């Protein structure tokens, strides 16, 4: 051990403070959702549940919430299909351009989001495609693919190919091997990837604002309402919902991947 006692104590305190710094703003949004006063003034005037009733009966907010769910489900489904296919190809075959495929897949999240947004917008404008829910789904799918792809490929690397070969030796055909060997091994990693994709899509706004046309997803609604003073309490509740609906799927996904590490690691 090269770290001295004093340094260790200091680092522990600093780390605790950084965690506080990370969590206080999130906790604050939760608290404000119950704030009796309809302003950002601190401290809260008192605690109440009435904004939840008002928020839940707000039609614009309901529609935005539904739009977000539809967009996230659509993008997740597309990403799940394309990401799994790409992962199977890259992990199980050698072909020309293999490195390129695995590189291009990560592009959409490595490049600044605004570049993806404007690229898609110019493309849709060019071919005269009307903006709306479909273009949102296309936009979200471009960067959700990598989440499914990464999860699937990590699992495929850990699952020995010999299982699939054994299955073939025992007389199973291509489809049966996929159904009875490859897919069961992949299942939880696909679920984890899908949950991450859902969470990312549900929250997305940078690309969404470019391709949404008139459709308002939950983040778009929040973004267009946060300046309106009479909307503050409803925005606070919407914020709480947005956080929960992205964090809960991710938490489940990490649990699914954690099991994966226990069973599959060092294999």
């Amino acid at each position, binding site marked *: 051990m*090269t770290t001295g006692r004093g340094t260790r104590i200091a680092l522990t305190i600093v780390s605790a403070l950084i965690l506080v710094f990370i969590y206080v703003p999130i906790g604050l949004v939760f608290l404000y959702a119950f704030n009796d006063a309809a302003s950002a003034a601190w401290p809260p005037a008192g605690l109440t549940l009435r904004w939840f009733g008002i928020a839940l009966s707000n039609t614009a907010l309901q529609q935005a919430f539904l739009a977000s769910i539809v967009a996230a489900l659509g993008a997740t489904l597309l990403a799940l299909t*394309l990401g799994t296919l790409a992962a199977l190809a890259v992990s199980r075959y050698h072909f020309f351009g293999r490195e390129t495929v695995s590189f291009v897949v990560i592009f959409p999240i490595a490049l600044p989001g605004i570049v993806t947004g404007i690229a898609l*917008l110019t493309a849709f404008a060019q071919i005269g495609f009307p903006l709306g829910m479909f273009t949102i789904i296309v936009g979200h799918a471009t960067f959700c693919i990598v989440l499914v792809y990464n999860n699937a490929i990590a699992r495929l690397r850990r699952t020995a190919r010999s299982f699939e070969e054994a299955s073939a030796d025992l007389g199973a055909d291509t489809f049966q091997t996929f159904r009875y060997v490859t897919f069961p091994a992949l299942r939880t990693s696909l679920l984890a990837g899908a949950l991450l994709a859902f969470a990312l899509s549900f929250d997305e706004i940078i690309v969404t604002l470019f391709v949404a046309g008139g459709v308002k997803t939950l983040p778009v609604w929040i973004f267009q309402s946060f300046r309106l003073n009479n909307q503050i309490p409803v925005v606070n509740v919407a914020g709480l919902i947005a956080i929960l609906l992205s964090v809960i799927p991710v938490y489940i996904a990490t649990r699914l991947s954690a099991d994966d590490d226990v069973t599959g690691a060092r294999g």
Partner: protein
Amino acid sequence: MTTTGEFPSPRPSTTRRLATWLHRRPRTRLAALLAAPVAWLVIAYLGALVLMFINAFWSRDAFTGQVVREFTLDNFIELTQDPYPEITLRTLGMAVAVTVACALVAFPIAYFMARIARPRWRGLLVVAVVMPLWASYLVKAYAWRLILAEEGVLNWMLGPLGLKGPGYGEIAVWLVMTYLWLPFMIIPVYAGLVRIPDSLLEASADLGGRSWMTFRRVILPLAFPAVVAGSIFTFSLTLGDYIAVQLVSTTIFIGNAIFLNVGAAGDLPLAAAYSLVPLGIIMVYLFVARKLGAFEAL
């Protein structure tokens, strides 16, 4: 009853015949797997990028608002004139400031997670750092709007000390971005520090290196590629942001300028041209990061 007994016996059905046919043709199997994802990437993503690139060399007719499909460098000339150079420099400065702040804040906690916390705590801490990353980015930025508000919690805390928070503005943008991208820096730095073998530190101590010496001469150089890896995210995300900025300031950054040109001004070619600037900067940054060994640290 055993599961092996339930395993379906091969039947010469159509599916079976198709499977056999496919089994003999690995290239066809591969093509079937690759067709959809590659078509998607090429058409929906790379195709869009190419169209954006072409658009950057077109122009917009000031009267009709229509895009004129003739090659011109007008957009790029306009980008060298006011106010664009200032916006570009301001954004770059912000990206550097945010990256430095993230590195400085991330290092101690990453070090604590990697080398001081007990292994049992380590996993929990990683989850604790990663989870907020997924909590709605917009709402986290909004939280800072609440914190920095005139009558918000920060001024309430600082008030008794006779101090005042920064309010909305560029310092607020710097704070919010540092906050938002911090986990992107902590995770790679943690991974880099965890990988340093204890034996190296012991060797350094055996050779007479004091704690500080070991830190500066052994740990820092080994962790540097990881910091560069994290900086790719903090840098790229800052360059491409136009939402968080608007929640806590009225200052214009590259992202805002692009978005304004798309929305209010409706000059898509100019917006496309301007978005080549952050794209180009990131390309150069990725190239340098690769030279510094950041890709191995990811």
